[in-house]
C-alpha cells in the first residue's frame, strides 16, 4: 500500500511516541497511581480532594516543584502585565485571564509527554507556558501584533502554537472537547501511545457538544483527558443555575471515571492528571477531572463581578494557589523562603523582558488579512515541551530557562 507524504511525515512523531511508551513502561512500577481514582464521587468535600490525600509524592523531584511554582508565577505575572496593557489601551477588544486558576493548567499540562496534544482554553495560560510558548508571544497576541502566536489573525487567548502540539480554542464552548476527542481517535486508529488533553469550564457542561464529546470518547474508549474547571460562575451564572447534578457525576454514565480534586492545589491537579494520562496511554480510555476553583477576576476585564457574594470572594482569597504552594514548599517540601522568593522574582523578570519584546513587535501588515484562508498542504503539528522529570533526557531540558 502506498502512503501519502503526510502519512510518512507523521511517522517520526509516531516513533517518538513509541519511545515515550517504552520509557513510561520503565517507570510504571514506582509511578502508577491508576487505582487511586474515585468514580463519580458526589460526596467530595467542598474543595475536593485535599493535597495531602493526593500528594505528588515521588512523582515530582525538587526541580519539578520549582517548575510548578515558576509556571504558575509566570502565568500570574504575565496576566497582570496583560491587564495593565489593556488598561493602557494597548489591547484591542477585551481581556480575559485565569487569575486564581493557575494550578489547574500548570498541574495538568505538566503531566504530558512531548508527543501528546492539547486544546487549551482561555483560563489556561499556564498550559501554553508548560508546552513552550514564551510570554512575549502571548502578550503580543493580545495586542494584535505580528509577533503574537496568530500574527494578528486572532486575538486574546484564541491561540495555539501548532509547532508545540497545540490547537487553539474557538469562542464556542466546549467545541474543543470534540477536537481533542478526534485527535485521540487518530491515536487509537494508529495504535499510538499518545494522549489528548483539553479543558472546559463548568458552564460548557450544559451544552450539547459536551455530551457528544463525552459520549463519543466513552463509546470509542479514546485516550483523552478532560479537565473540567469549576470556577463557580459561567460569566455571571452560578452553579445552581447551571446544572442540577455536579457534572463530574455524569462521567461514569459515559463509561469512564470522574474525579474531583482541589483545583487550587497544583500537586493534586498534577497527580490526578498524570494518573488519567497514564490510564489513557495504557488504552483504558478517558477520564473526567473536575478541578474546583474560583475565577478571581471577572469574565473579562469589562466585568466588575458584582454578582459574586463578597464572603465567597473573601473565602477563596484565602486559598490563592500560588501562595498555598509557596507556603507548602517551605513548610513541607524542603524549600527555603529565599528559594520561593527567587523563583517568583525570576517569573517577574521574565515577564518584564517579555513585555518589552512584545511592545517592540510591529503591528501586522494589512496585506496579510486575506492570506491563508485555504491550506496548500497538510503539515504535522510539532511536539510540545514536557518539562516533567519523567520526560527529561533527549526530548527536553527541564523547561525552566525557556519560560
Amino acid at each position: 500500500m502506498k502512503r501519502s507524504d503526510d502519512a510518512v511525515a507523521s511517522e517520526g512523531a509516531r516513533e517518538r511516541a513509541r519511545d515515550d511508551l517504552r520509557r513510561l513502561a520503565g517507570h510504571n512500577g514506582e509511578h502508577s497511581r491508576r487505582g487511586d481514582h474515585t468514580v463519580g464521587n458526589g460526596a467530595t468535600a467542598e474543595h475536593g480532594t485535599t493535597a495531602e490525600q493526593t500528594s505528588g509524592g515521588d512523582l515530582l523531584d525538587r526541580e519539578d516543584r520549582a517548575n510548578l511554582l515558576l509556571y504558575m508565577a509566570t502565568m500570574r505575572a504575565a496576566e497582570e502585565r496583560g491587564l495593565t496593557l489593556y488598561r493602557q489601551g494597548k489591547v484591542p477588544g477585551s481581556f480575559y485571564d485565569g487569575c486564581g486558576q493557575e494550578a489547574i493548567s500548570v498541574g495538568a499540562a505538566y503531566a504530558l509527554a512531548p508527543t501528546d496534544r492539547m486544546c487549551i482554553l482561555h483560563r489556561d495560560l499556564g498550559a501554553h507556558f508548560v508546552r513552550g510558548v514564551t510570554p512575549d508571544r502571548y502578550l503580543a497576541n493580545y495586542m494584535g501584533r505580528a509577533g503574537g502566536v496568530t500574527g494578528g489573525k486572532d486575538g486574546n487567548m484564541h491561540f495555539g502554537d501548532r509547532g508545540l502540539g497545540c490547537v487553539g480554542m474557538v469562542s464556542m464552548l466546549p467545541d474543543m472537547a470534540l477536537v481533542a476527542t478526534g485527535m485521540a481517535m487518530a491515536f487509537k486508529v494508529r495504535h499510538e501511545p499518545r494522549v489528548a488533553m483539553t479543558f472546559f469550564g463548568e458552564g460548557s457542561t450544559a451544552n450539547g457538544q459536551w455530551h457528544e464529546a463525552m459520549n463519543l470518547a466513552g463509546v470509542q474508549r479514546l485516550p483523552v483527558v478532560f479537565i473540567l474547571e469549576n470556577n463557580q460562575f459561567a460569566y455571571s451564572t452560578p452553579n445552581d443555575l447551571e446544572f442540577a447534578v455536579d457534572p463530574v457525576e455524569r462521567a461514569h454514565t459515559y463509561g469512564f471515571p470522574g474525579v474531583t480534586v482541589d483545583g487550587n492545589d497544583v500537586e493534586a491537579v498534577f497527580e490526578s492528571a498524570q494518573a488519567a494520562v497514564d490510564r489513557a496511554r495504557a488504552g483504558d480510555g478517558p477520564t473526567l477531572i473536575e478541578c474546583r476553583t474560583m475565577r478571581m477576576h471577572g469574565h473579562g476585564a469589562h466585568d466588575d463581578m458584582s454578582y459574586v457574594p463578597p464572603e465567597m470572594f473573601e473565602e477563596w482569597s484565602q486559598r490563592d494557589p500560588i501562595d498555598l504552594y509557596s507556603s507548602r514548599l517551605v513548610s513541607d517540601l524542603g524549600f527555603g523562603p529565599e528559594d520561593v522568593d527567587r523563583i517568583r522574582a525570576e517569573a517577574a523578570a521574565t515577564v518584564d523582558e517579555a513585555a518589552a519584546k512584545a511592545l517592540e513587535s510591529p503591528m501586522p501588515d494589512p496585506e496579510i488579512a486575506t492570506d491563508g484562508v485555504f491550506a496548500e498542504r497538510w503539515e504535522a503539528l510539532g511536539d510540545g515541551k514536557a518539562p516533567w522529570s519523567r520526560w527529561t533526557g533527549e526530548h527536553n531540558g527541564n523547561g525552566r530557562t525557556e519560560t
Partner: protein
Amino acid sequence: MTATEMRATSLPEESSTREMTYLEAISDALREEMRRDETVICFGQDIGAFGGAFKVTDGFFEEFGAERVIDAPLAENAIIGAATGAAIEGLRPVCEMQFADFISCGFDQLVNVAAKLHYRQGVAVPIVVRLPSGGGFSGGPFHSQNPEAWFLQAPGLKVVAPAFAADAKGLMASAIRDPNPVCYLEHKGLYRNIRGEVPEGEHTVPLGEARVVREGEEASVIAYGSSVHLALEAAEALGEDVEVLDLRSLCPLDTDSILATARKTGKVLVAHEATRSCGVGAEVAAIVTENAFENLDAPVRRLTAPDVPIPFSPPLEQSVLPQLDDMKEALRELLAY
C-alpha cells in the same frame, strides 16, 4: 447513455473505463482512495456493517475493518468535530451526513472550527463532508434540502457538486487529497438515475474547474448538480443551440469559464435546485454583470426553487423544484429576448 452524457464524459483515451452509476462512482472513489492511502477513513452514522443509509459504503467494513470504517453515534457535531481533530493528527476522514439537511446539527464544528483553523493558526483540516442532497422523492422539509449556499458564506470551506458519474469519482478523489475541509454535495436524485463511463483506478478532477458539457452559440445555461441534466434535456428537446456549463465546483468558483460562456453567447440562465435568494445563481449573475455587462444581450436570468421549505406532497414538491418544462420555458424566454 444519452448523446449528451457521452459528450459530457471526455476521458483520456488510454484509460480503461467501466459503466457505473453516480452512486457506484462515489463508492469507487472512496474505495480507491482508502486502498491508496491508509490514512483515509470513513466516519458516519450506520456506515459500518450496515453499509450506509444509501449503501455508498457497502462492503467497506468487510474490506477495511472497524478501525477505518467507523460507525458514529447520532451526533453530527461529534462527527465533524472529531474528524477535525483526527485530520489535524494526520488522518483523512470522509464524514457522511446521512442527509445533507443534518449538517445543520454539525454546523458549529464545520464553520467555526474546521473552516477557520488554517486562517487563524495555520492548521490544515483535510476532511470531506459527504452531503446527500436534493429533493424529488417526497423527502419533505428535512430530507430534501440543497444547503450549498450556507457553506459559501463560510470562508475556508471548499464546495463541490458533481453532476456526472466520472466527475463524482474524480471530485471525490480530489476532495480527499485536498488539505482543506471540502463539502461534497451528492444529489440523491442522481444516485441511481445517472450512469456513465468512469475511469478505472486513479481518477481525479481538479477542484475549481467548470466544464462545458454542451457547446452552443445562442445562450448559456450555467448549472450544477441535477440542474445540469435538466438543462441538457431541455436543450435537446428544444433543438436550440444552447451551451451548458457544469460548474462542478462552487468554491473555488471557475470565474474564467463563467465569463467565457457569457461573453460567447451573450445570454445567461443560471439554474439550480437550491432556493433563490443569495444562492449560487445570485453570485454567478453578479460575476457576469460586473465583468461581462457589455457582452450581454439579455438580463441574466435565474431558474431556482422559490424561497420556501421543500414541501412533502408530490404536487407541492413538483411545483417548487424546477422541472423540465420550467427549464424549457426559461430557455425559450431567454432565447426570444
